[in-house]
């Protein structure tokens, strides 16, 4: 169990970095996990090609809340391309059935590697990815509303 619920997940599920709302988001997305009724809203604001602001709200299990909290810590202030690359790498990790990715990808993921064990439990995959699905959609919306800076995301969860 400790392998699934790593300390960084338990901590982030309680401290919840980035919980709140943005005054004037460029994009936002609401996602729901119909099996448990968990939901989240992710808001983003862009400054050129930079993800200048991210805030989230919602309710869910420790996995989903920690994933949102870490997402906020790792992507806010980053270049869009980097945030999206991180998101794709994280999706790859969660779909990897509990196995590590290649070392350079694990390095990129930093604390997100704590979620590696989630991939062993198919019922929890959506918990880990709910916030990242919202991020992807919010970014797509923000690109449209700000005139489409950067490249559109293309991979599927």
């Amino acid at each position: 169990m400790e392998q699934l619920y790593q300390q960084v997940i338990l901590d982030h599920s309680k401290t919840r970095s980035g919980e709140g709302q943005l005054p004037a988001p460029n994009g936002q997305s609401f996602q729901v996990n119909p099996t448990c009724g968990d939901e989240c809203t992710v808001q983003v604001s862009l400054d050129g090609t930079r993800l200048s602001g991210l805030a989230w709200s919602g309710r869910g299990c420790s996995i989903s809340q920690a994933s949102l909290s870490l997402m906020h810590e790792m992507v806010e202030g980053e270049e869009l391309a980097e945030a999206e690359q991180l998101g794709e790498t994280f999706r790859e990790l969660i779909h990897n059935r509990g196995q590590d990715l290649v070392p350079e990808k694990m390095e990129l993921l930093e604390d997100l590697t704590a979620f590696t064990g989630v991939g062993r439990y198919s019922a929890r995959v959506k918990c880990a990815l709910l916030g990242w699905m919202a991020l992807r959609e919010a970014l797509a919306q923000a690109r449209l509303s700000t005139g489409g800076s950067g490249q559109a995301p293309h991979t599927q969860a």
Partner: protein
Amino acid sequence: MSSKPTATIASWPRPPRESEVQPVLTDLLDLASDFPILSRKVRDGKPLVYLDTGATSQKPRQVLDAEREFNELHNAAVHRGAHQIAEEATEAFEAARSAVARFVGADVGEIVWTKNATEALNLIANGFLNASLGRGGSSASRYKLGPEDEIVVTELEHHANLVPWQELAAKTGARLRWIPVTGEGRLDLQQLEVINERTRVVAFTHASNVTGAITDVATILDRAQSVGAYTVLDACQSAAHLPVDFHQLGIDFAVFSGHKMLGPTGVGALYGRRELLEALPPFLTGGSMVEVVTMEETTFMPPPQRFEAGTQMVAQTVGMRAAVDYLGAVGMGRVAAHEDHLAGILLEGLTQVPGVRLLGPTSSEQRLAVFAFDVPGVHPHDVGQVLDDQGIAVRVGHHCAQPVHRSFGVHASTRASAGVYTTTADVEAFIDGLHKVVKFFA
């Protein structure tokens, strides 16, 4: 298990073998060894503790054998074909109907096979809809609904006994109303005035799949009958846990599901009083439910065939028959007493786990061994995950009953539910496991 079945056509369908009838030794039942899956290991070699019977029950070897025996020896389409195995299949299919009818206190012509209870509820609601659209001739006019009419459900319902009525109300203009729940998760019988002279249908559950509360059917029935409303009972949670007799209850329609009562998935049943089924227009139409078909129009068979369009799930009905034979041989009174005993242990154990809040009656009166609960600060998925790690299978989520969760101010819960095969060791393991959950997330 691997021995080759021998053809015993003359004795098909057969009565339960002596070995299938458990001897009475103690008050508590000890049937787990009849259920092969209960001896398997999960999560790195831990014995399976199955407490998710409310979602689906496990099947005894007798049910598995009956289905296999049917498929190996008698498989054919029913009510068509004149060859020997078609006759045998039809005989088995109709004998299953008789056995299930006897088990729930109905006449054989009052049981309609459906693929599950959800379909059975949709069959009733769509029968009303089709009557409201003018189908079914003058005899179906008794089911016509319009904007002046009301449909009553309850806040306790599974979505299957709520959404079809919402749809019916939306399509006919009828008003949907509901009986609220008390803080203890029982139907609030002080608020039965929602059933009034405009009420045409009252649909309610026999026992809640969340709170475990058993409904006072007679009180609701009295009120409904006093205003001339039709009554629909969702017996999914009760049929495998309590003695159920629809004639004695006096209900108009009822539904139940094979897989929740030790039987296969893919089969459920609708009960309807004969004269009511006679007047109800069909829901699904097509082959097997017709008399004369021309290019312009069609006349329909009498019930129950009128409601059984298309090729039927024959092996599953045979499995369901084996399930009710099994339960009948044990005796539903003994089943109820056994589960009552388990409910007592669960109730006491749950109240001793720090912080745990029960979503349901805190007394063991008129309740099933179905316990949904909230662990404040710990999401049900996390509770379920740590229990699962110990080999304990429970349900997490809203259990297809969002409104009753909302009434408790939560979005989801964890639920432990017992069945005829559940042992005291199972429920004790669960209580121990829950203590570990609370410690883990403290």
